[in-house]
């Protein structure tokens, strides 16, 4: 059965609550700021919000339902999306269908997390059952150690070098220097990247995101509602989602996108060549490279060569993570899974806060995450378009 298009569904009101390294505020506070930002930005009232999707690692013991009472919302559509870096894409595609079918009119999708001095350590040790049983007891190096193994394997098989990964990180940092909310504000050179201290070989300091507190959000509604409110919006062309893909791969070297990529572009009616910018999920540069391959921009194994032969800044030949990505902006927990989508909407509605990608008409936001044992299980991607509604 062919995938039904997302006719009439738009994404609007991109909101970022400025990140902070550490915060004594709760996730509830951060989520509240983001929801307030969307309602105000849309010119609506709380009573108008009839759909809510929440993603957060630190809002426990609450889930989305607790936040309805906490924030004074009475939605008729509610979702809790605990998918980390894939949260944005998954929240969007569920909200889109609800709006499309009339189950809800204005859905706020929000991701927010606090970060306290021991938040990260506590989260790591109880992240998943498999991590508890089969990963954390092995050196407790966290995702850095797990992705170091993936990185090492990928480098061995496809000849990627640290310089290749460094190029991605340096370009993202250049993008971030113009982005007002980025926590990393200093320029990064390739030498600094290469000489930085090792975290878990071959991963070094600048391969790792900085965990922080923050929130990101957007509004999903019908195109005519957005127009009547005077809101610039991006149209949703296609989405894919896939979890626990390729379970027989001994070490992860490809993600779920590879299984559904043809359907993705077919549904959108565009090809990879039509994409003006890509926001990959950048927990580690090796995953950026995998996404570049699996999202159809080059063949598997050609990621290193692709990176070498393109410029990845917002004004480059392959604009990538144009606000700086998590590697330079910071990873505010689940908000990291929204960061790329929010930047995509800004770029496509002419509201880029940093460098604007010239003539951006089609943007791709990709999500990935939830390392359960030895690999990221969740993946997804969304294609959006700007221009005239």
């Amino acid at each position, binding site marked *: 059965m062919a995938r039904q298009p997302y006719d009439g569904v738009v994404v609007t009101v991109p909101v970022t609550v400025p990140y902070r390294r550490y915060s004594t505020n709760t996730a509830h506070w951060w989520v509240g700021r983001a929801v307030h930002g969307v309602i105000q930005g849309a010119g609506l009232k709380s009573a108008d919000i009839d759909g809510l999707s929440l993603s957060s690692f630190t809002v426990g013991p609450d889930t989305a339902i607790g936040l309805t009472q906490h924030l004074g919302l009475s939605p008729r559509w509610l979702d809790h999306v605990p998918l980390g870096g894939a949260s944005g894409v998954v929240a969007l595609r569920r909200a889109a269908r609800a709006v499309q079918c009339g189950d809800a009119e204005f859905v706020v999708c929000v991701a927010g997390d606090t970060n306290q001095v021991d938040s990260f*350590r506590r989260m790591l040790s109880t992240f998943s059952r498999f991590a508890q049983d089969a990963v954390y007891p092995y050196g407790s190096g966290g995702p850095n150690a797990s992705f170091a193994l993936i990185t090492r394997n990928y480098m061995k098989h496809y000849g990627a070098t640290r310089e290749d990964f460094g190029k991605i990180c340096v370009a993202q940092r250049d993008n971030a220097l113009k982005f007002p909310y980025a926590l990393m504000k200093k320029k990064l050179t390739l030498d600094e990247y290469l000489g930085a201290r*090792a975290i878990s070989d071959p991963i070094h300091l600048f391969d790792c995101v900085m965990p922080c507190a923050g929130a990101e959000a957007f509004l999903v509604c019908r195109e005519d509602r957005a127009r009547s409110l005077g809101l610039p919006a991006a149209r949703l062309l296609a989405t894919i989602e896939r979890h626990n893909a390729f379970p027989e791969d001994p*070490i992860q070297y490809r993600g779920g996108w590879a299984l559904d990529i043809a359907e993705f572009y077919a549904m959108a009616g565009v090809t990879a060549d039509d994409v003006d910018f890509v926001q990959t999920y950048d927990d580690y540069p090796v995953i950026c490279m995998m996404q570049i391959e699996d999202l159809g921009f080059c063949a598997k194994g050609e990621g290193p060569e692709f990176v070498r032969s393109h410029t990845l800044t917002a004004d480059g030949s392959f604009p990538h993570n144009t606000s700086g990505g998590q590697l330079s902006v910071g990873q505010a927990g689940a908000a990291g899974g929204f960061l790329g989508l929010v930047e995509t909407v800004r770029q496509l509605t002419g509201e880029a806060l940093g460098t604007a990608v010239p003539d951006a008409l089609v943007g791709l936001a990709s999500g990935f995450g939830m390392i359960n044992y*030895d690999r990221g299980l969740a993946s997804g991607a969304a294609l959006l378009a700007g221009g005239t509604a």
Partner: protein
Amino acid sequence: MTEPLARPKRKNPLKKTRVPMLPQGVRSRTALGLTAAAAEGRFRLQVCDDCAAVIYPPRDACPRCLSPRLPFKDVDDRGTLLAETTIRTSTDVYFRERMPWRIGTVQLDAGPSIVAHLHGDLSEGQRTRLELKLDKSGQAIAIALPAEDTPNMQDDPQWRELTCDPKFRRVLITDGRTAVGQALAEALSEAGASIVFVGIADPWKPFAGEDRLRKLERVEIVALDMTDTISVNECAGEFAPRVDILINTAEHVRTGGIIERKGLTVAREELEVRYFGLTRLAQAFGPVLRARGADGVNSAAAFVNLLSVYALANWPAYGAFSATEAACLSAAQSLRAELRPGGVKVVNVFFGPLETEWYQAVPPPKVAPSALARATVRALQQGLEDVFVGDIAEDIRARLAVNPKALERELGS
């Protein structure tokens, strides 16, 4: 190449002793199947009863056919090390103190990928064999070893952290009067212990093998009577900080069920020597052992109980004795939990009838004291927790696992 362990220098008395930390010890119930395997030195993973898939990490439904029948079975331990990483920073205090720490992804020939600790002599791309071992938290982890033994491999720091190797450690054998105690003294001296203290009670009573015991290298006789609280406390007062491995060889074996042995004086003695003796040792030596679990190369490592296998299932011919051994086993289990915060392992070595005078009328197979000594040393070198020595002990263990009630009848017939 593993650097051979250097004999530790005398401890700097002005330096604070490192407090023992433990790696994360929380495991799901199903994952405790690995702990059971590691305790005995077996390599076992879940194997689906319905589709034969070999599964890791442990779980509650087969990922291939969704069957819930996933018993742990012995599995081929060979594989290839696909990728490795050296972790240099951790939020966990235990590992932070032990950086850098190597782990890797091993693909087992049997199927699954296993994230494992790496022995220093194993490199990426090489063939490996995995072992399940108990780490300091008392839970199972996998360590990948070189496919063939390498020189000094037992001195690898990650390996030593997982075992209780007597090399360069100081041992206390609580009773040297017995053949087992003497065989152990010799075996531990040969295994590289820096000193073996051997406890002797009632020095006015001569005993067989005394001359030979006194002549063994690195063996020192100390006064220790496990039926006397004052004696145990005084011995601990003098020696506890210098004991890294304590082996309780106290022996009191008499025939008879609980009706048959008229009166309670023999039972009292039995309990004094075996159960209260263990309690005294635990109280006198336990706290210091627990505090010294991370105290360098010769850290406190193990409290070893030699237990009759009839602690697990009563043999009425030695019925009262079996009951006392059962009390000791239960106490040892408590001790295991009480010493765990120090990362000190409680090792229970189970054996059937011995080739000693109190089992004289029992037909073979019986365990020779030297064989028991060798098995105990090996258990320490391998970091095992539950060890069964000899044919009878293995037999009892196997029968217990299948049908304890049948075993009760068989032993009682």
